[in-house]
Each structure stands twice: as structure tokens, then as C-alpha cells.
């Protein structure tokens, strides 16, 4: 897998082919876990993911 160079992910306009391939390769590996019966892996244990969802509806505003 290529080295990941994005600290933030804003838009796919900034994704190189290698970026896409890194995402797909990993996603494929994670996807395959369900065939082993594994629901959880400790890859991000000890880290905190916070979701900040400010948009209240499906209506997109300009």
C-alpha cells in the first residue's frame, strides 16, 4: 500500500489514483473480515472518532 499523504479528507478532486487504490485495497480487506466471523478488530483501539453532524435534513442548501 502507498503512503497516505492526506491529513484531512475534503474532496475526491484531490485524490490520486494511488489514494483510491489504498482505500479500495483496505476496504476489500475489511470487507473480507465478515467471512471470518470477525466483527471487530483493534486497529483504532485507544483513538477517538467524533461525529459532528450539523445538517438536520436532506435538503442541500447553497
Amino acid at each position, binding site marked *: 500500500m502507498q503512503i497516505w499523504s492526506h491529513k484531512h479528507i475534503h*474532496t475526491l478532486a*484531490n485524490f490520486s489514483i494511488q489514494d483510491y487504490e489504498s482505500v479500495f485495497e483496505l*476496504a476489500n480487506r475489511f470487507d473480507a473480515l465478515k467471512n471470518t466471523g470477525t466483527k471487530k478488530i483493534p486497529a483504532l483501539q485507544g483513538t477517538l472518532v467524533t461525529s459532528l453532524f450539523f445538517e438536520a435534513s436532506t435538503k442541500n442548501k447553497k
Partner: protein
Amino acid sequence: MKQVQRTKNSFELAAKRLSADVQTFAPSSSSLTKGETIIDTAITYSAMGADTLVIRHSSSYITFEIAKKLDAINSKTSVLNAGDGLHSHPSQGLLDIYTLIKFFSTKTLSPEVLNSKKILIIGDVNHSRVARSNLWALSAFGADIILCGPKTLIPDEFINFLKVPGPNQKEDPVKSRGSITISRSLEESIKIADAIIVLRLQKERMMENLLSSIDSYSSDYGLTPEKLSLNNREIPILHPGPINRDIEISSKVVDEYPNCLINDQVSNGIPIRMALLYLLQKYNK
């Protein structure tokens, strides 16, 4: 289920599958109601120790602003855009293309299967951050995209969408991309399509006088089994959800068409979001 809830749940599930701790910000009960800015809210959660902020907001480009402020204070927190105004929805774009690659690949996952495929996107492209993300992702792998809908929902200028550099971008990181064409005839477009992405019609567009009626839109651009039969193959159908049954897509297509991949998209969203969360932490190490 509202789309915002689906995306939030999907990200939270992805984080939990990786054993991350998950924290959810609730706007209605927060200091936002006391006038705190969105950026201050993000800084607060970064100060609490968030490694990644997954952000959905109605303002386009807001995640750039938040990330800039966080970087300026030397924060290690990463920002992951979960949908900003009309601009971008990276994880949806990725799971859509991943779903198509899985469909077209034979033994191993091969993104090059999309090269020269004609992907038809139907509907309100102008108000869709999902469609914008689809355009960047699909074209990167050489797919040629046909945008189909009325002029009020797909202005002619969209033909040049890929020629305008993205924000904070000096040059396109992809050297050669597939093309964009625009069609006003769904019947003609379906005949040559290799896959279809149907966009949700937002009924507010009628209030904005962009459509004469929902029925007339549905008649011209709604996807039905009869229109699908114009293509002599069972091509894959995607929709970012939530669907408006029998408006942009008929219930018969959703429930009975063998290659309706809407549920696959939802399933694929989890590993794609796991990959994004994992990669952002790899950067931070």
C-alpha cells in the same frame, strides 16, 4: 430514515468495528444554540482528544476552514468531510465507485474495469454533492459519464466540471480522466449505459420553480422497468438514498430488478468508511 442519520450511523459503526471510541455531537443540545461557532465547536472537540472529526454541514467548503484553524493551532486532529453543502461527499463517492468495481470485476478487485464504461447519472446533479464526488471518482478511472436530466437540474456548464481545479488544488492529481456528456433524453441514454446512478429528487425544487411538476419529472426521468428494458443487459443500478419510491425510481426496480445495488452500497459504506478512518490515523502516526 433521513440520509444524515444513515451516514452518521455508518461512520459510527465503521469506527466501532475498528474498536475506536465514538463520540457524537448533538447540535440541538449543544453550545451552538448559545451562539458558539462551528469552528469553535470543532476546536473544542479536538481539545477533548478527538483523533478524527467526521463533519457534516450545510455550508460548502466548511471542512477546509475547520481544518485550517485546527492546523493553525498545531492540532493533530484530522477532519473527514461527511458532506458539505453542495460541494462534496467523499465517502459516498468512494462507496459508489467501489460498488461498481466489485460488480464489474471478475476474480480480483480491478478498478480498471471502469475504463471506458458509460455511467449514466440521472437527476438533480446541480444540487448534489454526491454527484460531484461521483464525477471525480468515476472519471479518475476512465469512465465516461452521461448526465441526464432537465436543464434546470443539469445546466450545460456541467460539461466543463472536471476542467475546473478543485479547491486548494493547483493541478489535477489524475493525468487523464474520462469525459462528461449531457443528455436530455433518458431513453437514448439508457440504451448505451453500462451502469446507472439515480439521484434523489428533492421536492423543494418545485418550490424553486425548477420543475413544472413532480409527475412530469417522473414521467420524463423516472427509472422504470420499461425504460430499463431499452438496454438489452441487466445493468447495475445505484442510488445514494434515501429513495423517493415511484418518483425518481419505481418500486418495481427497487424491489425486483436483479442488479439494483442499493443495499450493496449501504453494506460497502462500512468497509469504505473503516478504510478512511484507518488511513487518517496512519497519517497521524
